[in-house]
């Protein structure tokens, strides 16, 4: 067996190494020559067909650009490009950079404990990993980026995932797996030293806070003045509590069963919400303004984060996983069935300008921070190091799970983009321009949107009021944050398959519910993780805080984290300039700075392995993410255009206040002006903190890489290699050689089979 394996690289520390296995067992890895199945004429023909279809789709999108373009070309362009990238680019990364070794046991095998470390079937783990990485992010960013036309967003989502997002997820997953499932923070500390590691830790904590705040802001904006939405989303809490009690006291472990019950109750809550929203008392009780909802979410966030996991977090997580996979499959089918015609231009009027009403700033760099999740999301590095690597059965499976999982999230982003593109452009701008621009009224929105001078846009008040009536809302003007727009798009597509126009209101609220469910799960899981990190940090000075079982310490740290994101949330909700439009760039910048940190750690590890020829694989996306986020941060800090620069805006409002003016720009009162001064100060300060931390981390990574280059590599921080005693195929479908080997293992007498056994 050992003769067929690759020879170790010069340093001997990083690459594959042949491990003698138990002679009584069949081989634990497929022979190397069988790894690359031969090219048959049929296979060549299939790949040529995929390439031609992909090429045709890109031609339709990028070159032909007729009056309208059919949504099906987005699906084909994305899927064909993903397939080619997965088959060829991720394979190159596997062979040259990652060099997995299936004779080597994974942590799931050598640390097997039946709970956290369990060798899990690759297809199941793919679903697990996908459910953990995909949330509301890929659903929101692409919607906002539609402002610039369809092509910039489409290109970035598809090309970005191939060369950046999926590469990051794959590498972090593999490197963490080789280190027993160590977290990104721990790896940063090992590879970058104390300064880089500490900066990475603080950055992660700050990023977590800002991400939770902005996700919560999306929910608040979707639920404001919407009695139907408030009722049905509020009902998720008693439903989750019921599920928790059911699992604890009635039928422990029957998770699928309780999830189906929960799903039925959820549908009942959506339908019930529609009935209640038609009664006077329902409207009186559940029409809440945004500040009230924000306070509700802050209180909820604290309670949810200190309640035991079994009561609220775990059951809602089951429900959210169930809904996530179901809805995404449903939306994909619906887009293929309905195939909406899209009238949005490839590049809109705002693609070349920096005064867009939704995303302010020029296409470069702001497109790349508006769409973070779906193309490149640093947050995934926290999932890919931690839970998933402890469950991987065989090293070769990391390509399917890490790279493949991220491709699926990118596809979700493409579908969100299509849903937003299928809406009339006038309605799109009326929904997403801030209330400061539209005045929150139909007349104001019509005047504002028609005044933008957009080709082919002729918005009427009737269009807005009939759409609002169709989706069962009082108004759809200035429903910013992306979620309501996506919900309208989804409702429009779904009613083409199920139920017709009469069902639009149901589908709209289904979509709002679905996003709120993810976000609330992310809010309370994020609060818990942030609390945990804070406890760990404070524990360095006050050792008692390290004990996570100590209630008082946990409560204090939870309260601090909730207040931190709660303050930013309230700031966004009350912001006279519109909140989400000013805060969303911070979300994207934060997420991609985390990606830059993760890629920097990967680059340092690749350099230590001595693989300098292939260093560009993490270095190119790192350079891109660094340039984008640092440029965007600098513009946010130094730009003299008030719509773009936080400090420019800060100074303009402060000067107006000093001059004794009583209204300035969108702010109609002195209090509003003071709020802008305060908010821009916080936003500007956060920008400075983020960019400083990121520069420190990237600089320490470059230093570590150069050091490794000078010495030709470095000592590996991997766990020692142990022989594997199990076998499982690597991709979604097993190859003939893999099937043969699987059958050999299957044929082993039961008492010879190794103790750690997968499905």
């Amino acid at each position, binding site marked *: 067996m050992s003769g067929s394996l690759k020879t170790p690289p010069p340093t001997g520390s990083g690459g594959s190494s042949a491990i003698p296995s138990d002679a009584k067992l069949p081989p634990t890895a497929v022979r190397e020559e069988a790894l690359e199945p031969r090219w048959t004429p049929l296979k060549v023909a299939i790949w040529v067909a995929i390439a031609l279809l992909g090429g045709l789709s890109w031609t339709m999108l990028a070159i032909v650009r007729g009056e309208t373009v059919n949504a099906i070309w987005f699906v084909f362009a994305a899927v064909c490009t993903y397939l080619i990238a997965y088959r060829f680019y991720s394979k190159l990364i596997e062979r040259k950079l990652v060099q997995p070794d299936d004779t080597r046991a994974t942590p799931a095998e050598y640390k*097997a*404990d*039946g*709970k956290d470390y*369990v060798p899990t*079937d690759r*297809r*199941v783990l793919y*679903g*697990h990993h996908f*459910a*953990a*990485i*995909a*949330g509301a*992010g890929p659903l929101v960013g692409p919607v906002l980026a539609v402002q610039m036309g369809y092509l910039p967003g489409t290109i970035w989502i598809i090309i970005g995932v191939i060369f950046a997002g999926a590469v990051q997820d794959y590498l972090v997953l593999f490197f963490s797996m080789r280190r027993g499932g160590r977290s990104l923070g721990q790896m940063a500390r090992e590879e970058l030293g104390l300064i880089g590691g500490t900066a990475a830790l603080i950055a992660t904590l700050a990023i977590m806070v800002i*991400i939770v705040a902005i*996700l919560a802001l999306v929910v608040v904006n979707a639920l404001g003045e919407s009695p139907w939405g408030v009722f049905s989303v509020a009902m998720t809490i008693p439903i989750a509590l019921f599920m928790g009690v059911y*699992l*604890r006291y009635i039928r*422990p*472990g*029957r*998770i*699928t069963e309780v*999830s189906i019950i929960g799903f039925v109750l959820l549908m009942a809550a959506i339908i019930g919400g529609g009935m209640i929203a038609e009664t006077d008392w329902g409207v009186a009780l559940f029409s809440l303004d945004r500040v009230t909802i924000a306070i509700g979410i802050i209180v909820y966030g604290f309670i949810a984060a200190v309640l*035991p*996991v*079994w009561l609220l*977090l*775990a059951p809602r*997580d*089951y429900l959210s*996983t*169930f809904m996530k*996979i179901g809805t995404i499959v449903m939306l994909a089918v619906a887009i293929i069935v309905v195939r909406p015609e899209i009238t949005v231009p490839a590049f809109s009027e705002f693609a070349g300008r920096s005064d867009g009403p939704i995303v302010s700033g020029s296409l470069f760099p702001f497109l790349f921070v508006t769409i973070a*999740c779906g193309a490149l*999301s640093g*947050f*995934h590095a*926290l*999932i890919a190091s*931690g*839970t998933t690597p402890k469950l991987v059965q065989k090293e070769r499976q990391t390509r399917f799970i890490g790279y493949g999982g991220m491709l699926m999230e990118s596809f979700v982003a493409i579908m969100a983009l299509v849903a937003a593109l299928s809406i009339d452009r006038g309605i799109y701008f009326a929904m997403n321009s801030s209330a400061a621009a539209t005045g929150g009224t139909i007349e104001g929105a019509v005047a504002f949107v028609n005044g933008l001078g957009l080709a082919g846009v002729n918005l009427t008040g009737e269009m807005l009021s009939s759409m609002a009536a169709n989706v069962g809302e009082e108004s759809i003007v200035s429903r910013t944050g992306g979620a309501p727009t996506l919900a309208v798009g989804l409702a429009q597509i779904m009613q083409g398959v199920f139920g017709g126009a009469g069902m639009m209101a149901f589908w709209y609220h289904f979509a709002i519910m679905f996003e709120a469910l993810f976000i609330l*799960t*992310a809010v309370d*899981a*994020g609060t*818990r*993780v942030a*609390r*945990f990190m804070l406890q760990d940090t404070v524990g360095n000075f006050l050792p008692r805080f390290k004990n*996570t*079982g100590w209630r008082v310490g946990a409560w204090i740290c939870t309260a601090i984290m909730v207040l931190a994101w709660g303050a930013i949330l309230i700031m966004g909700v009350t912001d006279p300039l519109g909140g989400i439009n000013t805060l969303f760039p911070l*979300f994207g910048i934060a*997420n991609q700075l985390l990606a830059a940190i993760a890629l920097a750690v990967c680059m340092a590890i690749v350099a230590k392995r001595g693989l300098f020829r292939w260093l560009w694989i993490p270095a190119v996306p790192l350079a891109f993410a660094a340039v984008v986020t640092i440029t965007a941060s600098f513009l946010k800090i130094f730009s003299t255009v008030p719509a773009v620069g936080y400090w420019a805006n800060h100074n303009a409002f402060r000067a107006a206040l000093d001059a004794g003016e009583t209204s300035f720009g969108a702010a109609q009162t002195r209090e509003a002006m003071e709020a802008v001064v305060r908010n821009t100060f916080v936003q500007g300060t956060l920008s400075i903190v983020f960019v400083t931390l990121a520069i420190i981390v990237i600089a320490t990574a470059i230093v570590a890489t150069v050091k490794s280059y000078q010495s030709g590599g470095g000592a590996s921080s991997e766990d020692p290699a142990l022989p594997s005693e199990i076998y499982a195929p690597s991709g979604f479908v097993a190859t003939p050689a893999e099937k043969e080997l699987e059958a050999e293992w299957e044929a082993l007498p039961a008492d010879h089979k190794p*103790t*750690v*056994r997968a*499905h």
Partner: protein
Amino acid sequence: MPGMTATVRRAVRGVGWYVTALMGDTAYGNYVAHHRSTHGDEAPLTEREFWKERYREQDLTPGSRCC
């Protein structure tokens, strides 16, 4: 068509296996299998005890969910 029903039955069983494994119904079974192979002489936790213990551990070491 007996071949057809067998295929359908296999497909249904496959979907059932996938969904329950994905949602986590199989966690207790995994634990029992592991327990039997490592400390075969001790009795494993009951399903109720197992889940209680599992959620308690999750309380102490929170995992992150993505945006």
